[in-house]
C-alpha cells in the first residue's frame, strides 16, 4: 500500500503546490516589491528608482536594504494633492455606492417578486451587461452625456432646457458611470437575500394587522441587510481604486487615487511615488476588504 500513499501524496502535493507557487511568485512577491520600491529613491535611470537590489551577496544586499528611505511617503504627506485624492476617492465611492443602492433596491425587489419562471430570465438580463466590455459600457456614456450628446438632444427637443447641460467632465458623470457599471454587483446580492425571504413572515405580519409598507420596513428590509452590505462593499471597494471611469467621464477637477497612481506612473514616471500611492491605497481598503471577506465566510 506504500505506493498508493505515495501516489495520493504526489497528487495532493501537485494540486496544492502548483497554484500555491504560482500565486506566491505572481501575487505576493510583487506586493513585496511594490512595498520595497515605495521605499526607494526616485532616479533618472532605467529602471527609474534607486537602489536596485544587489543580489551578488549578503553584504551587498544588506547595503541596498540600508539605503531604503521614506522620501516617497514624506512627499505624499507634504503635497495636499494626494491627501485630497484619497479623500475625494472615498467620497466619490461612498456617494456612488449610495446612489447604486437607490437604483438597485427597487430593481432587486421587483425581480424577487416576479413569477418563478420569469426570475432566471431577469437574473440573466442583469448579468448580461456585466459580460459586455466594461470599457465599452463607459464609452457609451460619453455619447450620452456629451454637450451635444443624446441626453442633451432629448432635453432640448422636449423643451426641458434651453441650453445644453454640462454633465461630461464633472463628478456627476463619474457617479453615473459608477452606478451604471457596478449596478449588477449590487442587484444580485440583494436579490439573493430577498429571494430567500420566507413569505410566511409577511403573511403573519399582515394577519397581525401590519400594513404592507410597515411589513416591508419591519421585516423585508432588515432581512435584506446582509445582501445590501455585501452589495455595497462590492461596489465601494473597486470604486475607490477606479481608473477608467474618472479618466473618461470625469473632468480635470475630478480627483481619484487610481487615476493619480496611473498618472504618477505613466506621465511622471515616478515609480517610487506610484508605489507609495499603491501601498496607501491598499491600507485605505484593508478595512472594507476584511469586512467583505468576513461576510463571505459567514454566508458560506
Amino acid at each position, binding site marked *: 500500500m506504500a505506493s*498508493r500513499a505515495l501516489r495520493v501524496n504526489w*497528487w*495532493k502535493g501537485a*494540486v*496544492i503546490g*502548483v*497554484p*500555491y507557487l*504560482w*500565486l506566491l511568485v*505572481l*501575487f505576493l512577491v*510583487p506586493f513585496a*516589491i*511594490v512595498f520595497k520600491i515605495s521605499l526607494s529613491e526616485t532616479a533618472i535611470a532605467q*529602471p527609474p528608482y534607486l537602489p536596485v537590489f544587489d543580489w551578488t551577496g549578503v553584504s551587498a544586499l544588506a547595503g541596498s536594504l540600508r539605503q531604503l528611505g521614506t522620501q516617497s511617503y514624506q512627499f505624499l504627506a507634504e503635497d495636499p494633492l494626494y491627501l485630497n485624492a484619497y479623500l475625494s476617492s472615498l467620497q466619490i465611492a461612498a456617494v456612488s455606492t449610495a446612489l447604486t443602492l437607490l*437604483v438597485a433596491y*427597487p*430593481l432587486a*425587489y*421587483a*425581480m424577487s*417578486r*416576479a*413569477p418563478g419562471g420569469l426570475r432566471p430570465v431577469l437574473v*440573466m438580463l442583469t448579468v*448580461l*451587461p456585466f*459580460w*459586455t*466590455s466594461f*470599457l*465599452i*459600457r463607459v*464609452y*457609451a*456614456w*460619453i*455619447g450620452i452625456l*456629451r454637450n451635444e*450628446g443624446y441626453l442633451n438632444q432629448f432635453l432640448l427637443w422636449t423643451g426641458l432646457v434651453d441650453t445644453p447641460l454640462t454633465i461630461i467632465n464633472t463628478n456627476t458623470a463619474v457617479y453615473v458611470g459608477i452606478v*451604471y457599471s457596478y449596478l449588477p454587483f449590487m442587484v444580485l446580492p440583494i436579490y439573493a437575500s430577498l429571494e430567500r425571504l420566507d*413569505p410566511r413572515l*409577511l*403573511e403573519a405580519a*399582515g394577519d397581525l394587522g401590519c400594513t404592507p409598507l410597515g411589513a416591508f420596513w419591519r421585516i423585508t428590509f432588515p432581512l435584506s441587510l446582509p445582501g445590501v452590505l455585501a452589495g455595497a462593499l462590492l461596489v465601494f*471597494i*473597486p470604486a475607490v*481604486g*477606479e*481608473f*477608467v471611469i474618472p*479618466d*473618461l467621464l470625469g473632468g480635470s477637477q475630478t480627483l481619484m487615487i487610481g487615476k493619480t*497612481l496611473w498618472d504618477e*506612473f505613466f506621465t511622471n514616471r515616478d*515609480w517610487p511615488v506610484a508605489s507609495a500611492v*499603491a501601498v496607501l*491605497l491598499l491600507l485605505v*481598503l484593508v478595512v472594507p476588504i476584511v469586512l467583505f471577506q468576513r461576510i463571505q465566510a459567514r454566508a458560506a
Partner: protein
Amino acid sequence: MKRGLSAFNLVSLVLGFAFLYLPILLLVVYSFNASQLVTVWGGFSTRWYASLMGNRLFLDAAWVTLRVAFLSATLATVLGTMAAMALVRHARFPGRTLFSGMVFAPLVMPEVITGLSLLLLFVAIGFDRGFWTVTVAHTTLTLCFVAVVVQSRLVSFDRSLEEAAQDLGCPPAKAFLLITLPVIWPAVAAGWMLAFTLSLDDLVIASFTSGPGATTLPMRIYSQVRLGVTPEINAISTIMIAVVAVGVIAAALFTRRQETRRRADERLAAQDV
C-alpha cells in the same frame, strides 16, 4: 402573499432594465450611422464596419487579445481548478490561510495595484514585457475567478464516487479525470468563459504589463476614445457586444441542457438501485 407584479414593481423593472440596456442599444444603433458626426443620424450605413476591416491597428490588436485571452483562460482554468480542489479537499495543510487569502484577494484588489505590482516584478527579474507578460498577468488575475466558480460546484460533489474508484485501485489523477471532472465540467467551462471574457475586457492590467508589439484591443480602443468619439469605435463595440451575447446565451443553453441530462441520469441510476 401574492407573488404577482404590482404596478410599482413593474415600473422598477422597466426603468431598471431601460437604464441597463439603453446606453448599449444607442451605441449599437449609432454604429450603423452614415454620418461622420457620432450623435447626428445621417441614415443607415455599414461604412464603419467596412473601414474597420481595413484598419490594421485594430485587427492586429484583436488578434493579440484573442490569443492572450485563449491562453490565459486555459492556464487559469487548470490552475484555478487545482486551487479549488486544494481548498475543498484539503482542510489542513501548511499555509492554508495564506493560500486561501491569495486565492480571494485578487477578486477585490484594485486593478491599478495588481497591474503595477506585476510590472515591477517583471522589471525586477529583467523579463521583457510583451505578449507573455500580459498572458501571465491575466492568468494570475482570472485563476481566482475560476477557483471561486469551480469551488462552489466541488462543495456539492459527492466524494464517495471518487473514493470508491481509488479503493478499487484507480490512481488519484485518473480518478479525477474520469469521475470528478465530467461531473464538475459545467462549472469548469463556466470558469473558462469568465476568465476568457475578463481577459478580453481588461485594460488596466494589460496597460501595465504589456510591451511593444503587444497592444490589446481595449488598449487600442482606450487610446482612440481619449482622442474623441468615433463611429469606428461604435462599430467595433457592437461586434464585441454581439460576440459576447452569442457566447453567453449559447453557454447558458448548454449548461441548462447538461444540467437536465445530469438530472435524468441520476434519476435513471436511482431506479436501477
